[in-house]
């Protein structure tokens, strides 16, 4: 075969290359969400290929992107608007979901005793990364290529594909270089922590970038020329985007120079990135990961646990705190929610302009809608966390919940209490300062917050009602977060807003109405709590250990 000859020519063993490629594919495909353990098929068939689920969601994004070149006049700016977020998404994917495909400490442990040459190892790894980046770039960018082919002709569509592929390759190789350079400077475990913060930054970039650009993009798609900031041309995706300007016949010195920059970047990145992947590099990563592990002493949790009286609550609080501190993936998830919440708070404050005291101005749906994002954040954070706490890479350790006499329903409800005490109430406490700044009436702030607390508690109860799960007891699946996050982001906040609007309309009119309304809501929460207890007991009774 030609491929085999080519690989042999470069000193790569074709058989081993195929075996390594197949193993990488299987490892990605059989993430914990679909692994088969001791004859027990864990996870449902729908989770069998988590990558497909991720591709599906990115395809939806790709279709949304396709509207940009369709409605725009400037092909280069349109391509930039699509390729910049594509790069961020790809970088985020490579670092956070597929980080181990670049290099991981386990590689050396497994492969060092096998007769695999460094060249074969690196060829397999690079192949996997190229395949992954091109695959995800395809779903993100191909709809735009189709859109531009229909609108401007097949040549421009074809060049769009080339620009998108070059952008994807450059992003992939850039990430390899970044990862390798970071590993050289920072020990492996610290790098994992750093990645958690990078996830936060990337989330800020994605959500914040869209937030800031949305108004400009709207005008741009209506044919209005979009003024780009001075640093725009410094972004590599813009260089690749300028290929499309050339295809459209815009041969300005700037577009030619930018296109040339793109070609040079690719020519530099491809060999430089590839050279960083080797078995000897995996060895140093492996050594760093082992030697560093014994150095850190955990912080004591006495103060935190002492707040809780029930033993189940203490056990769950300790577990959640420790998982947050040392389980990098869980930490990433939690930290990843913060920027979104912060942006919602920020945009809520911007959108509402001013928070009017609902007891003085008669808050109605319009009043709430103005600052809706602030309220959205109230349910978003604990809602997503609730789901994340159900899953873990160490789900096999959950056997203790099945073999100890701890009431499993009590454990599930302990998660709700811990979320309320350590996440919801502190958030409401902070929100109280914002309210007080605008209301200047402490009693009104407290009364309003009590209603929000009860309403959000009700929503959290509903979330547990729908899917009661033992903590850290289910295998984590690749990209599972996307679907659920979308649901929580849409349904939860809408319910909360509806509840608050209804409440303020009918019960904020006078003291008696408020007392009646708040009491009714309190009673409702108490009733739902009883129902929830019964439902959780019934549901968890039928659960089986997933390990």
């Amino acid at each position, binding site marked *: 075969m030609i491929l085999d000859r080519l690989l042999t020519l470069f000193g790569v063993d074709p058989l081993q290359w195929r075996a390594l490629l197949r193993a990488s594919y299987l490892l990605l495909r059989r993430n914990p969400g679909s692994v088969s353990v001791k004859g027990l098929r864990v996870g449902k068939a729908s989770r069998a290929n988590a990558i497909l689920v991720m591709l599906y969601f990115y395809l939806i994004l790709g279709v949304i992107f396709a509207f940009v070149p369709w409605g725009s006049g400037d092909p280069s700016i349109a391509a930039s608007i699509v390729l910049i977020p594509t790069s961020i998404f790809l970088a985020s994917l490579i670092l956070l979901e597929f980080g181990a495909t670049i290099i991981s400490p386990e590689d050396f442990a497994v492969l060092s005793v096998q007769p695999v040459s460094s060249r074969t190892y690196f060829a397999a790894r690079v192949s996997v990364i190229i395949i992954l980046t091109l695959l995800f770039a395809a779903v993100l960018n191909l709809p735009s290529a189709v859109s531009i082919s229909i609108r401007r002709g097949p040549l421009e569509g074809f060049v769009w594909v080339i620009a998108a592929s070059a952008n994807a390759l450059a992003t992939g190789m850039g990430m390899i270089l970044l990862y390798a350079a970071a590993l050289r400077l920072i020990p492996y475990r610290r790098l994992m922590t750093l990645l958690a913060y990078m996830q936060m930054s990337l989330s800020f970039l994605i959500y914040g970038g869209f937030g800031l650009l949305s108004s400009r993009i709207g005008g741009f798609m209506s044919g209005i020329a979009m003024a780009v900031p001075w640093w725009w041309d410094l972004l590599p995706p813009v260089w690749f985007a300028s290929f499309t300007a050339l295809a459209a016949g815009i041969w300005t010195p700037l577009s030619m120079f930018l296109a040339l920059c793109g070609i040079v970047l690719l020519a530099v990145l491809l060999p430089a990135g590839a050279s960083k992947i080797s078995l000897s590099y995996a060895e140093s990563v492996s050594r760093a990961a082992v030697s560093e592990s*014994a150095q850190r002493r955990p912080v004591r949790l006495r103060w935190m646990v002492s707040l809780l009286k029930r033993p189940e609550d203490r056990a769950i609080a300790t577990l959640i705190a420790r998982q947050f501190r*040392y389980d990098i993936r869980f930490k990433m998830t939690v930290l990843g929610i913060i920027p979104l919440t912060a942006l919602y708070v920020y945009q809520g404050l911007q959108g509402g302009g001013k928070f009017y005291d609902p007891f003085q101005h008669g808050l109605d749906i319009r009043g709430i809608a103005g600052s809706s994002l602030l309220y959205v954040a109230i349910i978003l954070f604990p809602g997503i966390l609730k789901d994340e706490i159900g899953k873990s890479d160490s789900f096999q350790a959950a056997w*203790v919940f099945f073999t100890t006499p701890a009431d499993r329903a009590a454990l599930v409800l302990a998660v709700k209490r811990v979320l309320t005490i350590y996440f919801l109430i502190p958030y409401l406490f902070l929100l109280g300062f914002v309210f007080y700044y605008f209301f200047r009436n402490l009693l009104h702030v407290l009364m309003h917050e009590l209603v929000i607390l009860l309403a959000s508690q009700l929503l959290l109860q509903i979330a547990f009602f729908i899917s009661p799960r033992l903590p850290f007891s289910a295998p984590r699946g690749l990209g599972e977060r996307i679907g659920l996050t979308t649901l929580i982001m849409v349904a939860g906040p809408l319910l909360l807003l509806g509840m608050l609007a209804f409440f303020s309309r009918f019960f904020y009119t006078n003291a008696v109405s408020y007392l009646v309304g708040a009491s009714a809501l309190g009673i409702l929460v108490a009733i739902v709590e009883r129902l929830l207890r019964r439902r959780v007991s019934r549901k968890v009774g039928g659960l089986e*250990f997933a390990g």
Partner: protein
Amino acid sequence: MMNMTTIPEIYPTMITTTGLTKRFAEKDAVRGLSFTVGKGEIVGFLGPNGAGKSTTVKMLTGMILPTSGSATVAGFDIIREPIEAKKRFGYVPESGALFETLTGGEYLHFIADLHHLDRDVAARRADEFLDLFGILAQKDQRLQEYSKGMKQKVLIAAALIHQPEVLFLDEPLNGLDANAALVFKEIIKRLSAQGSTILFCSHILDVVEKLCPRIIILNEGSIIAEGTPESIARRTGEKTLEEAFCRLTGVRDARESAKEFLEALGR
């Protein structure tokens, strides 16, 4: 093939299974298993890989639900009264899985909390156990940093911390150093003498032979032999438990197998 054991009447029954069955997809992992274990007994639970030992223990400990049949532990039905049963047993799992982000001390407190143990009592016992196994100094280190043997010691301590009446031990000696293994075997003997019931799953036949007066051998989900090591050997016409085990589980003569294997490799 034997199905129901009779144990001496002086032993009140602590573990009973009646027609216990677990079916995964198309295959019966455990098929109609019935046996009893009396108070203070140490019973060895043997079988080749995939025989159904761990599945049985998982059903007895409430980790998975049986497809049919029933089981009681310390007199409580594991399906109908799981909490009461679980208060009375301890379990050392084969997987050795722990929440490794916790420290050794925190893990024992975590388990003690799940058992509603008094905090002072839990602290005292945790320290005693960790000291006994020589890992008290590492109490505040995360389990991620423990060796396999140290983790196993924590698992054993966690299984014993609430002073259970019944112990399910699935390969409990995995990773233990020689000293710790000796200490643990002595603990098992003393616990048995004090009236604790122990179901001991292992692949190490000599350990089972020395430690367990009674043995149950499982193959393809069913009991194929039961009795003292000597009686099993006698019944199969073999001299040792090891040979009897090979014969019962369908393994051909070990020397013959090794010879064929090497021949297949061209040696």
